[in-house]
């Protein structure tokens, strides 16, 4: 035991903290109650927030998947990447003719239905990438994809979603499928980011993709543009809009537009907001109630401590350190659970699109700390007002 009073200062505080932590761990029920209460609510908050943010990014992922281009040019009415409003093929040349454009390539994106040899039907997102530059192919397995896509009506499939087309888990490479009465052979696998529609993405050469889609006046969905060195993409996008009359957005602007579209057009913000709010509520209620009970039960002990000369300030530090400890452990369990959920969930294709974001890890840490410390402060006020004489009265 550390002697009190004789050596005030940091050492005495450390000693008090030691006492406080012994007190806490000496009551396993409340200790574990607090830890798991905070842990559960942290898990709820961070996991739901991750899924929420993940869902929102799904709207932006078709854009984020294309890492090679800075600017997307589209019909002025297009609000998000999966909205097909094709523009004239001639737009490609008009965009290329704008000063400051280093290169511009066509990019087709449309919905299609795949019929397998086994008789299944599946909806897919059909992407046509520029025959020459292959801009738009995901970076993963790129060298192989470039080789595999060159053949006539050859397609690269997103390897994470093959189960949506072949539920028997077969290797899709070499499988022939039928799209609009055309034979298409899957020649390679890649990995694309999950998109909001959840449909498998099938990559083909631009010429093949527009040849097998139904007749339409226009088929060019987007023109992907790179600015010349030294030219800001934002300024160039502005100039392309002015010259061609089309809508030109930078990669980030269009990704944000995809996210914004989901926020505006789905119930996701409300449902996930409610879940996250419930997580916060559970955390506040459990932490505050349990801490208050813990403090109330130990009121006599605190009184005794006060009676032997422990200052209010020291008691405050004691309770706060208890709160911080349970907060830390609870947070660790919760965030660890979320991290494990996301990390091991990657194996499951349907969970693959959710990301573990540093913002969520840090934000929930901050939130847990505020809740724990706030609850501790509220609980400890009774002790601070406590008359040490109570020990002797009881």
């Amino acid at each position, binding site marked *: 035991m550390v002697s009190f009073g004789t050596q005030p200062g940091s050492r005495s505080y450390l000693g008090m903290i030691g006492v406080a932590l012994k007190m806490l761990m000496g009551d396993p029920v409340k200790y574990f109650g607090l830890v798991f209460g905070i842990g559960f609510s942290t898990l709820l908050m961070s996991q739901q927030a991750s899924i929420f943010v993940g869902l929102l990014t799904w709207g932006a992922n078709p854009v984020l998947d294309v890492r090679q281009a800075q600017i997307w040019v589209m019909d002025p009415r297009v609000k998000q990447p999966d909205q097909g409003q094709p523009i004239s093929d001639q737009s490609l040349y008009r965009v290329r003719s704008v000063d400051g454009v280093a290169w511009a390539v066509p990019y087709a994106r449309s919905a299609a239905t795949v019929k397998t040899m086994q008789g299944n039907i599946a909806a897919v997102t059909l992407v046509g990438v520029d025959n020459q*530059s292959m801009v738009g192919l995901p970076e993963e397995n790129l060298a192989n994809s470039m080789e595999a896509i060159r053949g006539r009506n050859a397609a690269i499939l997103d390897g994470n979603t093959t189960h949506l087309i072949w539920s028997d888990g077969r290797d899709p490479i070499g499988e022939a499928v039928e799209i609009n009465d055309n034979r298409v052979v899957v020649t390679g696998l890649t990995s694309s980011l999950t998109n909001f529609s959840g449909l498998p993405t099938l990559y083909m050469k631009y010429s093949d993709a527009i040849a097998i889609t139904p007749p339409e006046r226009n088929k060019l969905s987007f023109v992907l543009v790179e600015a010349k060195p030294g030219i800001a993409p934002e300024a160039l996008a502005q100039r392309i809009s002015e010259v061609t009359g089309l809508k030109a957005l930078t990669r980030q602007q269009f990704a944000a537009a995809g996210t914004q579209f989901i926020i505006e057009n789905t119930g996701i913000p409300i449902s996930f907001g409610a879940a996250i709010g419930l997580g916060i509520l559970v955390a506040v209620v459990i932490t505050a109630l349990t801490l208050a009970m813990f403090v109330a039960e130990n009121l006599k002990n605190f009184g005794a401590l006060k009676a032997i000369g422990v200052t209010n300030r020291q008691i405050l530090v004691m309770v706060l350190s208890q709160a911080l400890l349970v907060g830390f452990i609870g947070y660790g369990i919760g965030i660890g659970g979320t991290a494990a959920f996301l990390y091991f969930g990657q194996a499951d294709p349907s969970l693959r699109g959710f990301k573990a974001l540093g913002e969520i890890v840090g934000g929930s840490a901050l939130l847990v700390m505020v809740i724990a410390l706030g609850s501790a402060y509220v609980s400890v006020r009774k002790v601070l007002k406590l008359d040490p004489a109570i020990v002797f009265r009881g």
Partner: protein
Amino acid sequence: MKVTPQLLRRLALPIGATGLIGFAVLTLSPPDKAGAAPPAPPASAPADQSSVVAALGVIEPSSEVIGVGSELSGVVREVFVKPGDQVAAGAPLFRLDGRALGANLEAQLAAAQQARANSAASASRVPSLQANAANAAAGIAQAEAGVTTARGAVTQAEGRLANTQAAADVARLALADAQARLGLFATISDPRAVSTDERDRAKFAMERAKAAYDQARGAVLEAEGGLTSARGGLGDAQARLAAAKAASASAKASILEGQQAALAAQAGAAQAAAQAKVVSTDLERLIVRAPIAGQVLRLNIRVGEFASAGPLAEPLVAMGAVTPMHVRVQIDEEDAARVAAGAPAQASLRGDASKRIPLTFVRFEPQAMPKKNLNGGAERVDTRVVEAIYAFNPSGIQAFVGQQMDVFVTAKPIARAAASQKSGDAK
């Protein structure tokens, strides 16, 4: 502080939590990555050109593609060229079957020969016809002489008739006198008043006068018969003259006819000769020849196939002059104003954007055309393009007619166009 099992138990949770937090931090998803390089170089504007007009270009021969057609239809018997061959102007490309025309030519040549013989025969008949005509003319003269003679005979007969009639008149008068005298004796009732002798003498005189008269009458009748016969002779002579004249006319007509026949035969001979020439020209036309010097780009005809005359969807032989090559550059009409005639340009072939091919300006096509989309198959007419023709030297470049190129034409800066559009929007 001593490390006791109890302490370890107490520290288990915080250490575990630290580990979990560490795990969470370590498994953070990587941030969004941007700015990857294109997998393969895309067609890009030349870095040294600040302003360009980009356009689709299609390679074509400098002569444009010539779809060589056949003038005649028929089965191909021989093909003289292969795709890719360089041929001179007039070089044979393929030959159609010529047996029918060859036989026809022989028949025509025979017909020509026959017509020539006919013409000679017709011409030779004309002199004999002319001789006939001369004979007929001589017959006319003879007949005319006969007519004159007959007229003389008529005149003579008429004179004799007048003479005999005059003699008959005299005899009639003498007869009347003798009768009157005899009458006088008859009126005398007393036979004795007049001697029988006298009476008889008077009677004989009367009878003599009567005989003379009868004789005279006979002479008149004879003279009349002579006149009639002379007149008949004249009529005959005149009829002969008419016949001679008709014969002459007919002879003349047959000369004309003969001459016409000769001319017709001559014309027929000429026609037959011309006919034969037509067939031999057709025989020559069976061999289809290269209209210009150039390269055979495509051969859609093989030995034994039927080649139709007239325009075909797929020409029998496509050829063109490939040095230099031309590129038909389709410049959007909205960008056309930025391109000056003679502006330099660079192009890259599909599939190899890193290799830039310098182009030299040839001309603008004077007529703007609806853009034909070559990628999608179907023709779309939503925009019009001004076509500029550029040339490049194909040596050392594997470029094929019909290939597409990404062309970047050096152009005026776009700033002015943007400004004018802004003002247009403001209105």
